[in-house]
């Protein structure tokens, strides 16, 4: 592994350059601390640091309720991920099919699901389908659209992985007399997965983000429960701040995991 570019650019500074860097660092730190102090003062001036806005975070019920919301988020995200991984595989088979009559509709479905906002699909499940007689629970009104739009993306991620597997692998497996299905599931797909595991895990972050829309259909996920908390305690700023941090934390952990998995395993 070579040195990072910034080390080459600024590495081995002369004593004078070191002094300049130190002075600039102190200046930058002072500026940033000033900025942080300004924000805290803003909170204070607006009365948002009052104990009554923060006291309820000491109650276990608050955290139990937020935890329940987080659990709802994770339940919906997990199911959406399962749908995406499964349906993505089906769409991939269609996309790779030799028959045009299978391939073209698959491309159309993938482009359609990938090209429409998840939020629009949620509104379809929430507003458009019920009048036609299709009623889903709030859980599915959120999970199904998120799963469907992720499935299309996952199908394309799978495809990138499959195309990255050297062609000789397929030829060799065929010459051994394996069927197409055996070639795909025993030889090509496991190798493709190796390449794309980080991209698949990164998709999880997007799934978790998309479940934030749960408040639209009043499914009890983190955002929805935050709204309920706000209605109870009138503490808009603290609750939204804490919830935003929780989301960041969960997604940060997931993307960290994807970077770890991205390291070569063999």
């Amino acid at each position, binding site marked *: 592994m*070579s*040195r990072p*570019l*910034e080390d*080459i*650019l*600024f590495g081995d*500074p002369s004593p004078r350059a070191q002094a300049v*860097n130190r002075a*600039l*660092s102190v200046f*930058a*730190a002072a500026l*940033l601390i000033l900025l942080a102090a300004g924000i805290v003062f*803003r*909170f204070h*001036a*607006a009365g*948002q640091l009052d104990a009554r806005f923060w006291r309820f975070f000491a109650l276990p019920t608050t955290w139990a309720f937020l935890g329940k919301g987080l659990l709802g988020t994770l339940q919906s995200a997990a199911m959406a991920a399962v749908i995406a991984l499964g349906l993505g595989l089906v769409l991939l088979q269609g996309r790779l099919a030799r028959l045009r009559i299978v391939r073209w509709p698959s491309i159309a479905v993938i*482009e*359609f699901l*990938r*090209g*429409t*906002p*998840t*939020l*629009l699909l949620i*509104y*379809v499940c929430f*507003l*458009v389908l019920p*009048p*036609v007689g299709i009623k889903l629970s709030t859980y599915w009104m959120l999970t199904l659209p998120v799963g469907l739009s992720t499935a299309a993306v996952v199908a394309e991620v799978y495809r990138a992985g499959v195309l990255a597997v050297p062609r000789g692998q397929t030829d060799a497996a065929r010459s051994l007399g394996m069927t197409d299905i055996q070639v795909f599931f025993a030889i090509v797909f496991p190798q493709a997965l190796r390449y794309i595991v980080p991209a698949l895990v990164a998709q999880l*972050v997007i799934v*978790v*983000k*998309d479940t*934030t*829309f749960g408040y639209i259909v009043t499914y009890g996920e983190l*955002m929805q429960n935050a709204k309920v908390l706000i209605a109870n305690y009138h503490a*808009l*700023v603290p609750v*939204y*701040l804490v*919830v*935003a941090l929780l*989301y*960041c934390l969960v*997604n*940060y952990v997931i*993307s960290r995991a994807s970077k770890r998995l991205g390291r070569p395993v063999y």
Partner: protein
Amino acid sequence: MGGVSSLLADYGPAFGQALLLTWKLTLLSFVPGFLLGIVVTVLRLLPLPPLRFVLTAYVEIFRNIPSVALLIFIVFALPDLNVLIDYEPSVILTLTLVCSAFTADYLRSGINTVGGGQVEAALALGMRPLRIISAVVMPQALRAVVQPMTSLLIAVMLSTSLASQVPLPGRDLTALVSKIATDSAAGIAAFAVAAALYVATGLLIAWAGATLDKKVRILR
């Protein structure tokens, strides 16, 4: 397809306006987001630890926060801190911040495609670090990230559907569909038209991105 033609007779101009608003929000958030992302990337290269720390936090926060949560914070929480931002600028600010974080992330990996030997050569020629960044590193990094930036532009375009969560004077495509679905039975037709417009816009961006990528890609 009678549903669609009668829908277009009733709501044709509304769809035109919604599409224009979607495009406008996309551009107004992508361009500043992209520029801000470049600034963050360059500043993160400087050998100033406090600055690097804060900018890394900036990128991680806005890469990982759900855009809706950010939008809701800006629209509903900031007024309590006596910071009042109008609805449309709020949507644009949300998308700009998120877009800038992703731009910084992609540019960072674009920078990693530039060989260290080039920087060493430039240093040996007596170029200053900032000049090397602007003349040697950044141009190559930008050319390397056309494809991820195209995907990001499409993602920003799809995220403008967030605008339906705040009462804008005009309606974006998603808000229009939700209004038509609430008012009349034409929900499915409205959804079909809006979906077609989103998909068409996305394909147009993807095509433009691929064309640009072919032009500027550096073959190594």
